[in-house]
């Protein structure tokens, strides 16, 4: 039996649930504690857990470092891009009201917050992953077999 059998099985069960929980926290940010930063960290935790159990190479195959770096840039671009979109639509920077014509129910604010939180999610999870990959990829002093 593989020495880490329990860990592998349990993590295979848990990682999808962690991702779902991250999405829950992301969308729940409107109504309670949550939002982009927290969700981003939890998403990154899912991938980091995978890396810890199954090895760094497997994690890098699942979420390549280039994807993580691109995700970081993409998130900032989305956030500031929403601001530019509001500028192009004629209002002040990050004035979400113009994003949707339904002013009475403040749909513009909803759309705006959802989009910027999406950007935050992308950036935070990607940055956490990039940091993890950067640290974990250093050549170790003591090889794994010698522990």
């Amino acid at each position, binding site marked *: 039996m593989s020495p880490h059998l329990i860990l592998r099985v349990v993590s295979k069960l848990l990682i999808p649930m962690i991702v779902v929980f991250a999405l829950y926290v992301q969308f729940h940010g409107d109504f309670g504690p949550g939002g982009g930063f927290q969700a981003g960290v939890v998403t990154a935790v899912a991938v980091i857990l995978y890396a810890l159990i199954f090895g760094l190479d497997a994690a890098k195959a699942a979420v390549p470092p280039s994807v993580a*770096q*691109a995700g*970081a*840039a*993409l*998130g*900032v*671009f989305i956030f*500031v*891009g929403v*601001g*530019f979109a509001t*500028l192009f639509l004629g*209002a*002040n*920077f*990050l*004035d*979400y*009201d113009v994003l949707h014509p339904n002013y009475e129910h403040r749909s513009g604010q909803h759309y705006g917050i959802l989009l910027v939180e999406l950007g935050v999610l992308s950036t935070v999870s990607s940055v956490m992953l990039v940091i993890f990959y950067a640290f974990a990829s250093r050549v170790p002093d003591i090889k794994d077999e010698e522990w």
Partner: protein
Amino acid sequence: MMELLGALIPSALAQHAPVLLVVVPLILSPVAAVMPNGRIAWVIALIGVAFTVLMLPPLFAGVQADAVMSYALGGWAAPLGIEYRVDALNLPILALVGIIGFLCTLYALPSVADEVDEGKRAIFYATFLVCFAGLLGVAVTGDAFNVFVFVEISSLSTYGLIAMGAGRDRRALTASYNYLVLGTIGATFFVIGVGFLYMATGTLNMADMARVLAENGHDRVTQAGFAFIVVGLGLKAAMFPLHVWLPNAYAFAPNFVTAFLASTATKVAFYALIRFLFSVYHPDVTFVDLSSTWVFAVVGTIAMIVASVQAVFQTDARRVLAYSSVAQVGYMMLGLGIGSADGLAAGLLHLMNHAMMKGALFMALGAFALNYGVSRVKDLAGMGKSMPATSVAFTFGGLSLVGVPLTIGFTSKWYLILAALENGWWWAVAALILSSLLALAYVARLLMPIWFENAPTHGGAVPKVQRVPWLMAVPMGILALANIYFFFHAAPIVNLARGAANAVMGGF
């Protein structure tokens, strides 16, 4: 001229100028980060910085028309929303950061290509754009917590930029680490101070804070907040006992980074200090007035003398200039400590002049480093023959530091001496003259090897004149000539400084 340039910018852009100034470099940063090579990333950085410079004429026009340009972020009006305010105080700072940033970015292409690995250049330029946006954000915002956010944005990217010098000298890493620890402590002190202010006033908008403090008086919470804010921003501005991070950080960072930071980072922190001192707390309040006399003036005077003495004994050329920067910040602190509009104007004038001086000096050192790998003072031997144009630029900057007449250094020291005399502070005048003599000592230490010593001959060959890439030579030449030009045409800059001081002495 500003009106003409301002008319060229479409009004749709001009009305959003306060925010576009900050946001365009910020959005170009992730674009630069994913570029495949350094050259394209440099082009993107140049576009971002150029856009910021283009946004300056509308701001000049707006401030001339209205005295204050206010921009409500997100459509939420102040004091609830975050507001960006441009008035006569931060307009010169924005112009300074923008123009120096533009010149330094031009300078960057050959310099960074020499010092940073190819694979890291794209991220390097992206980090630079974030730092640039952060510094502009500190200068333009009217919300106290937003100042903290932008201070941290610019500081974190600065730590990264400084550490990029590790390719040449591994001491950049320890320098950046020490700056990180000290800078974070400073920023945290600042946020504690803002927290106290928030507790006392219930608002984060600086104009609103001033109104509430004026109505309700200054209790102990606001005094404690004041102390924390002064220490926090003083650390970022390299005020005397809190300056220990600066020499190593400037000495080991890549030359482009040093040229940019030396001209902008401490100046922006100094501006933030003035903003809090005069526009949130009122200068007539007892503890503010006392701190001006007993903290800023005293600390500035000590800095002028002690840091200049330390500069004389350094062996690394950039460390000499770094300690000199600490001394020059002391001049600015003295101007602030004098407490009158003339003193503040003199301090701000010195701020702008010093940016031009140090920009030229560090750019020249970078040019020396590009061609000859110069880092120590004795490496400068013989540069006068091998790189005459660069040596002339370096000389202009050095003479300016001393305060020789015909240079802008003389202008700002003159105004400082006048302001000190008006206040009756003979000891300050004596300190100014003493530190100018000390500046003569360390500048002479730098200039003598350049002009009066011969280059170490390798096999007896006569050193030929080495050319500097034009992208480096043009910005360096512009800044060096500015040192002389603005002595003869001092009016624009002196008026900017006076306008800034008067705007702030009259309340927010």
